[in-house]
C-alpha cells in the first residue's frame, strides 16, 4: 500500500479471501519425546471470500471446525496450509509490525462473555488496551474519551468505566467485548457464537446491536454459530461446514430455500421451530448416528456415513464444492438436488 490516500472502499468488493485453508492438529503420545500418531483434521481445505459490508454466516455442529477456522483467521493458530488474503495482503505470512497492523483490520467477538474479559481489569482498561498496544491509533490524552465513546456506542453507560466485568450481566459483558473489538476500527469482525451464551431475551438485543453497528460503520462480519435461525436472520451469505469442510455455500436464500446438500437439508429440518402448528407441516430428516471423529473422517464424501443418498461413488470420489445443476451455488454433493417437501 502506498502512503497516498487510502483506496476507495467499495461495498461488495472482496475484502478477505480464504484459499484452501488447512489445519491439522497432531495427536501425539509421550511426555518428553513426542511421537505423532495421528492428525485431527479440524479444518480440511476451506475456501471462501468475504465481501465488504456483508455478513457471511458459518454454521455447523460441534467439531465441524468452525471455531478453529475463526482462530486461524485471527492468527491464534498456525495453519498447516492455505492462504488468507486480507485486502490484498497475505495475512498468514505477516509477522511483527506487519501482523500488528493487519490485526487492526480484523477483530473478534468471542462466545463466552464470562471468560473473555480479564476479571482483574476494569472495563476502562479492557477497552483501552487496544490503544496501549497500538498507541498510534489514539494519543494518550484522548484515550479515556475514546473508551467512553465506545461504551456509549455499544449502549453502556460511559460512566461505568471503572467497574469490573463481574459487575455486569452476560449481555452487558458481551457489549464490552464488542466495544473492545471496535476500538481499533476494524473492517472485519469475526463473531464466534456471540449470542449462544446469552439468555433468549438478551440475544435479540445483542443481535440488533451488531446489525446497527454494521450499518453505521460499514463492517463486514463472519458470523459463526450453531443456531441456524440466528444465522439466517443476520447473514447475507451462509457457509455450511461439516467435518472441516464447507459442504455448501450460497446466499441466505439459496441455503435456506434451495439447499442442495443433504447435510444442509437435514440440519435445517432438525431445527425446532417455535410454532406448534409447524410440526405437522414439516418433516424432519432423521440422521442416524453421530458425527465421525475428525481424526478419521470417512473416505470420499465426509458425510456419506450418515447420508441416505450415499452410493459407491461417494466413498471413492471426493465431491467438490461447485455449482450444481439443481441450483447454481456451490454444493459438495454428487447427488445435489433441491428438497421438495419442507
Amino acid at each position, binding site marked *: 500500500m502506498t502512503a497516498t490516500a487510502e483506496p476507495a472502499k467499495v461495498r461488495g468488493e472482496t475484502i478477505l479471501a480464504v484459499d484452501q485453508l488447512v489445519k491439522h492438529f497432531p495427536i501425539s503420545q509421550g511426555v518428553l519425546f513426542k511421537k505423532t500418531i495421528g492428525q485431527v483434521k479440524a479444518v480440511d481445505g476451506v475456501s471462501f471470500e468475504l465481501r465488504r459490508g456483508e455478513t457471511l454466516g458459518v454454521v455447523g455442529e460441534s467439531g465441524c471446525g468452525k471455531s478453529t477456522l475463526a482462530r486461524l483467521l485471527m492468527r491464534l493458530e498456525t495453519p498447516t496450509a492455505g492462504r488468507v488474503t486480507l485486502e490484498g495482503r497475505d495475512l498468514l505470512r505477516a509477522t511483527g509490525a506487519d501482523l500488528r497492523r493487519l490485526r487492526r483490520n480484523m477483530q473478534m467477538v468471542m462466545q463466552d462473555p464470562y471468560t473473555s474479559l480479564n476479571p482483574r481489569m476494569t472495563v476502562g482498561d479492557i477497552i483501552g488496551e487496544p490503544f496501549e498496544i497500538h498507541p498510534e491509533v489514539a494519543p494518550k490524552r484522548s484515550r479515556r474519551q475514546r473508551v467512553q465513546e465506545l461504551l456509549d456506542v455499544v449502549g453502556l453507560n460511559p460512566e461505568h468505566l471503572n467497574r469490573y466485568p463481574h459487575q455486569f450481566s452476560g449481555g452487558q459483558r458481551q457489549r464490552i467485548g464488542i466495544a473492545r473489538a471496535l476500538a481499533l476500527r476494524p473492517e472485519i469482525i469475526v463473531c464466534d457464537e456471540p449470542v449462544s451464551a446469552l439468555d433468549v431475551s438478551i440475544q435479540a438485543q445483542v443481535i440488533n446491536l451488531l446489525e446497527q453497528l454494521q450499518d453505521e460503520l460499514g463492517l463486514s462480519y463472519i458470523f459463526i454459530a450453531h443456531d441456524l435461525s440466528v444465522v439466517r436472520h443476520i447473514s447475507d451469505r451462509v457457509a455450511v461446514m461439516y467435518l472441516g469442510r464447507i459442504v455448501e455455500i450460497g446466499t441466505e436464500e439459496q441455503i435456506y430455500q434451495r439447499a442442495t446438500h443433504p447435510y444442509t437439508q437435514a440440519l435445517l429440518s432438525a*431445527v425446532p421451530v417455535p410454532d406448534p402448528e409447524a410440526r405437522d407441516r414439516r418433516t424432519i430428516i432423521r440422521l442416524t448416528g453421530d458425527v465421525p471423529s475428525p481424526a478419521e473422517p470417512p473416505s470420499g464424501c465426509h458425510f456419506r456415513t450418515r447420508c441416505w443418498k450415499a452410493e459407491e461413488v461417494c466413498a471413492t470420489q471426493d465431491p467438490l464444492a461447485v455449482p450444481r445443476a439443481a441450483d447454481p451455488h456451490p454444493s459438495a454433493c454428487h447427488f445435489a438436488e433441491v428438497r421438495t417437501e419442507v
Partner: protein
Amino acid sequence: MTQNAVRPTPASPTPPGGHLLEVRDLHVEFRTREGVARVINGVTYHLDAGETLAVLGESGSGKSVTAQAIMGILDTPPAYVRAGQILYQGRDLLTRPEEERRQIRGAEIAMIFQDALSALNPVFSVGWQIGESLRERAGMSRADARKRSVELMDLVRIPAAAKRLGDYPHQFSGGMRQRVMIAMALALDPKVLIADEPTTALDVTVQAQIMDLLADLRRDLGMALVLITHDLGVVAGVADRIAVMYAGRIVEHADVHALYRAPAHPYTKGLLESIPRLDVRGQALSSIRGLPPNLMAIPSGCPFHPRCPYVQQVCVDEVPHDLVLGDGRTSACHFAQEVHDDRDG
C-alpha cells in the same frame, strides 16, 4: 406468610382422582451472605399421567429450582422451602420423612440433567451405573441387573447395547451419554420423568433424536414428562401444556397451541418476538428491553413491569393475580386480555 396458599388454582380444578403431581404455591429462598434471594415465589402447577408439561424460562427464572424441590435435592443451606406443598399422588412430599422421599426419588419421580458428562461417574462403566439402582434399590442380582441394563440401553436405542455395557462414559458421544442418563432414570420405572434442559448441550441433529426418544418413551411407558427448557422451539414440538416462568413465578400457563397462537402475557409475547425464526425471512427482532430482575430485589407489583411495554401505574403497585382466560389458560398480567387480543403490537 402463607396466607395466599389458600388461593385456589382456578384454572385446574382437581379431578376426582387428584393429579399425579401437583406443586402448590411453592416458595423457595436462597439465604446467602449477600442477602436473601427469593428464587421461587408461589409456583403452582400440576401434571397428569402421560402428559408433557413444559416449564419455560430463562436463567434465574426458578424453573430448575422448582424441579429440584420436587426431587428433594435442594441444598439446605442455602435453599429453604418457605411455604407450599408438593403433592405426589396426594401425599405432600415436603412433610414426609427423608426415608420416604428417598423411596420416591428415582422409583417414582426421576430426573435427567443437561450435562450428561458430569452427571455420570467417569470411573464406572455405564452398565454398572445403569444397573446400580437395580441392584441397590430393586434388589436384583448382578446377572439380572446386567440383563435389565442391556434392555434399558436397547430401549433408549443405544446401538450394540450388550457390547457397550462395559464402556466408560468418555467413550460415548454427547448424544449417547444423554441416552445412558435416560436409561439410568428409567431403571426403576418412574411415573414422572423430569428432564432439565436435556438437549441444550447437544447439536441440532442429535437434539432432534433425543426429543423423539423422550416423546416415544413417554407414549410407550405412559410416563408423565416435565420438560424444563429455555428453548421455545424445542417446547413447541413436544409439549402439551406450557408454564412460562419469570422471577420465580408462573406468568403464563396454557395449552401449547393457544400460547403460541396468541400469548397472553407480555413476557411470553416478547420472547416469541425476540427469537429469529428459521422459517421466516427478514423479520425485525424486537428485543425485550432491560435485564432479568435481581432476585434479591424483585421489583414491586408485577416483577416484569420495568421491562414491559404495556406497563401502567397498577403494575407498579399491585401484584397481578392469575387471570383465567378460558380453556384452562391463565396469565399473571393485569392486561392479559389486551395482550392476548393485541396480535400485531
